């Protein structure tokens, strides 16, 4: 149990940030090996990693509750996340928006508009089906589901787009997530913030 968990992370990747935040704010002893993912490399098993960590280490139970119905709510979100929140936010990830601008070629507006429309539908569902009037996606306490979703929705920020700008309910939820995890949130997002700031400086 004294052995460090070794994690290979690229903090430009949303799922990597979720894992980083959990490790940091639960103080699970770990060593981060930074990797730079190649373009198009998709991380898809972060929820398996998060569930493994919450079960193996002595972390507060709210992250992944043991009570069956509460656990099922988290499993329900993490499953839905893969085919809803994740692909929608992926379409707005910085390379697809940023690189065309950098190279001087135009952003594919039709594709961007379609991505924004899909994301809009997904955010509607996130609000009406999961969040509803609860503080967090799966109930009164923060869970790994909130980490996955919050990190995902931060991603378009790297391309200068705040997708929660006109959604006060989700903005408040995101603020609650950030408060709940403290400094770990900004620490995990440092690379993304740097990308955003470099972009702003160029404009």
């Amino acid at each position: 149990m004294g052995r460090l968990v070794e994690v290979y992370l690229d903090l430009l990747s949303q799922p990597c940030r979720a894992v980083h935040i959990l490790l940091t704010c639960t103080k699970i002893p770990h060593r981060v090996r930074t990797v730079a993912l190649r373009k198009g490399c998709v991380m898809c098993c972060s929820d398996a990693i998060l569930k493994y960590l919450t079960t193996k280490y002595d972390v507060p139970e709210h992250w992944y509750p043991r009570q069956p119905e509460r656990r099922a709510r988290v499993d329900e979100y993490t499953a839905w996340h893969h085919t809803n929140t994740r692909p929608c936010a992926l379409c707005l990830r910085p390379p697809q928006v940023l690189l065309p601008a950098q190279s001087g070629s135009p952003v594919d507006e039709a594709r961007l508009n379609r991505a924004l429309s899909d994301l809009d539908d997904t955010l509607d569902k996130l609000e009406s089906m999961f969040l509803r009037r609860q503080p967090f996606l799966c109930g009164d306490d923060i869970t790994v589901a909130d980490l996955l979703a919050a990190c995902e929705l931060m991603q378009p920020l790297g391309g200068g787009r705040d997708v929660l700008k006109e959604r006060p309910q989700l903005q408040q939820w995101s603020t609650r997530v950030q408060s709940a995890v403290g400094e770990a949130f900004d620490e995990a997002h440092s690379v993304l913030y740097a990308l955003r700031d470099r972009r702003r400086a160029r404009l």
Partner: protein
Amino acid sequence: MALELYLDLFSQPCRSVYIFAKKNNISFDFKKLSLLDGQQYGEDFGKISLIRKVPALRDGDFCLAESVAIMLYLAEKFKTPDFWYPADLRQRARVNEYLSWQHTAIRMHGSKIFWLRVRSPSLICVGAVRLVMSYLSSLPFIGLLAQRESCSEPLSAWRDRVQEAVGKELFDEAHQYILGAQESVKSMDSSKMQVYKPKILRLFM
């Protein structure tokens, strides 16, 4: 109130839940839904599942969507044999790893192949057919279930093991509709399919 499972056996995740429940002798009310008839948009189903997708579960006043979540809930509630979802941390993590990966891997490709091979003649225009053919040619195709002749040897052997472990009768029972899909589409009213056309085209674009 008995446990209710809302399923359309044309859907892959529904079949997984159906087989899992039946194999483990979990007693349930089989609420058959036809996606093609748009029954997921009915008012009653909307009270069970806000996302209006199948499979869906109702256990008393607890409703749940997503096949993975449903199977894990059933495994826990009915204390199914350990091998289904091992208690050992690392073995369980391996299962979770696969369950995560399959959403955007096998599941997605299986759906695309189904729509192309079974439904597309009545649905997809010429332009889209060109696009999907180029998709198919670049895809290292993993044949599943209905595409028996295209399976690689190890996968085919694996599928046979699953079939044997589950029991041929139950396996065939769950797959009777999907395996007859190519025949049933011939007599189907194609106007029913038009509502799905935009969704299907987006799968390939």
